[in-house]
């Protein structure tokens, strides 16, 4: 909350859209604002009434640079919007930077996402330091219901819950990297960085950066699903392949390679496999190992075919490793198998486990 817990002293709040951005149709702006208000109305007793003239509690406008409140915008990118906490006059007013390109989708700044965040301010919410929260100050594009537990707790502390509460499913809070029970969904390299996937987030580890960055998957790759099951990098092709359910996506840096997503069965996996648990590319052999349930396959990247005599049993070929895996990585002759909160360092040549650590030791915990 803002200092002094500023809030509206009534439950029916009025709003007025003073002007419109030329980037979108009027109806699309109306819809984005109304949907953004409904996000907050779903979890509180607040209702929102639109005014077409006069002064409303929340006056919404688009402006560029200095736009009348001595709180100028800065041209494209940087600052996207701002809003004032509840109060008379400027209080509750919400301004969007007209120099941004506003969209309905993820191709530029999504007006609904930014409006939902700003209207949170207009109702009394300050910034959250939880990267999974709508009130996190950095722009991120996500799909689905945008409020996290943190947002809901915050707004309900001001206004209480919705008495006719529709069941809303808040987004889970962001994972904490040093949680001793932390497990991972997938691990891959990406142009010298290590990317660790967990739920709808990933950590980005750069060899020169002391602290990993936590980022929402959709804010980097909006076309990917909210959860990645497995991933690997093929450095020769400069591609990262991500798996989710029966589909896979090939990325060249941040762009989707033409022809993707494809079904995982195109790799030669049997139709009975509905999900790849883990994938790892062994640079020395040019082979990619794909793990699903208790078996694994070997895919030859050079010929684009699955090697014969596969699948093979994980237990037979990796003595000491008899569990299914969440993720696998390969560095300098060692395989790193991740299973729940443990990481098994495995010598590929000696075929034995040489060290067991917590999974999150990779995140400097």
């Amino acid at each position: 909350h803002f200092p002094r817990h500023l809030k509206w002293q009534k439950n029916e709040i009025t709003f007025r859209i003073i002007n419109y951005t030329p980037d979108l149709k009027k109806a699309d702006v109306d819809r984005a604002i109304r949907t953004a208000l409904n996000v907050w109305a779903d979890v509180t007793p607040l209702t929102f009434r639109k005014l077409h003239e006069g002064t409303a509690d929340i006056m919404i406008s688009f402006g560029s640079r200095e736009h009348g409140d001595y709180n100028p915008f800065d041209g494209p990118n940087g600052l996207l919007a701002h809003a004032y906490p509840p109060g008379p006059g400027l209080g509750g007013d919400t301004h969007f930077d007209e120099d941004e390109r506003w969209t309905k989708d993820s191709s530029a700044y999504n007006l609904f996402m930014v409006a939902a965040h700003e209207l949170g301010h207009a109702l009394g919410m300050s910034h959250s330091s939880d990267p999974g929260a709508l009130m996190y100050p950095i722009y991120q594009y996500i799909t689905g219901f945008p409020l996290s537990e943190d947002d809901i707790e915050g707004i309900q502390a001001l206004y209480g819950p919705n008495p006719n509460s529709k069941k809303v499913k808040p987004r889970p809070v962001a994972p904490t990297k040093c949680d001793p029970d932390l497990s991972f969904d997938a691990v891959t390299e990406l142009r010298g960085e290590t990317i660790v996937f967990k739920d709808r987030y990933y950590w980005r580890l750069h060899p020169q950066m002391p602290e990993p960055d936590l980022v929402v998957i959709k804010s980097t790759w909006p076309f990917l699903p909210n959860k990645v099951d497995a991933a690997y990098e093929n450095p020769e092709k400069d591609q990262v392949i991500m798996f989710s359910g029966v589909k896979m996506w090939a990325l060249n840096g941040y762009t989707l390679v033409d022809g993707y997503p494809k079904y995982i069965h195109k790799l030669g996996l049997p139709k009975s496999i509905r999900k790849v648990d883990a994938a790892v590319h062994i640079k020395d052999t040019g082979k990619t190992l794909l793990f699903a349930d208790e078996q694994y396959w070997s895919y030859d990247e050079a010929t684009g075919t699955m090697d014969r005599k596969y699948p093979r049993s994980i237990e037979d070929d990796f003595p000491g490793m008899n569990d299914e895996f969440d993720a696998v990585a390969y560095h300098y002759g060692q395989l790193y198998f991740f299973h729940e909160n443990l990481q098994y360092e495995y010598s590929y040549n000696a075929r034995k486990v040489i060290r067991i650590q917590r999974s999150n030791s990779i995140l400097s915990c």
Partner: protein
Amino acid sequence: LPLTPANGDKRLLAERYLKRFYGLPAGLQGRQRSADAFQTQLKEMQKFFKLKITGTLDDDTMQLMEQARCGVPDVGEYN
């Protein structure tokens, strides 16, 4: 020593960011006090974003400052 242009740009961007979002006082101040305030506010920003608290303009901090964001300050009174 004079700052190199690159470092100067970084510092300028960071000062603007901290003034806007973390209440770094603007205006003339003693050299020592100004550096102290800068470092204190920088640490506060690093703490808010769960970055490593170094009090220096490291790559992680700079990268975050360059991202698109909301114009409402992260801490303090909003007048």
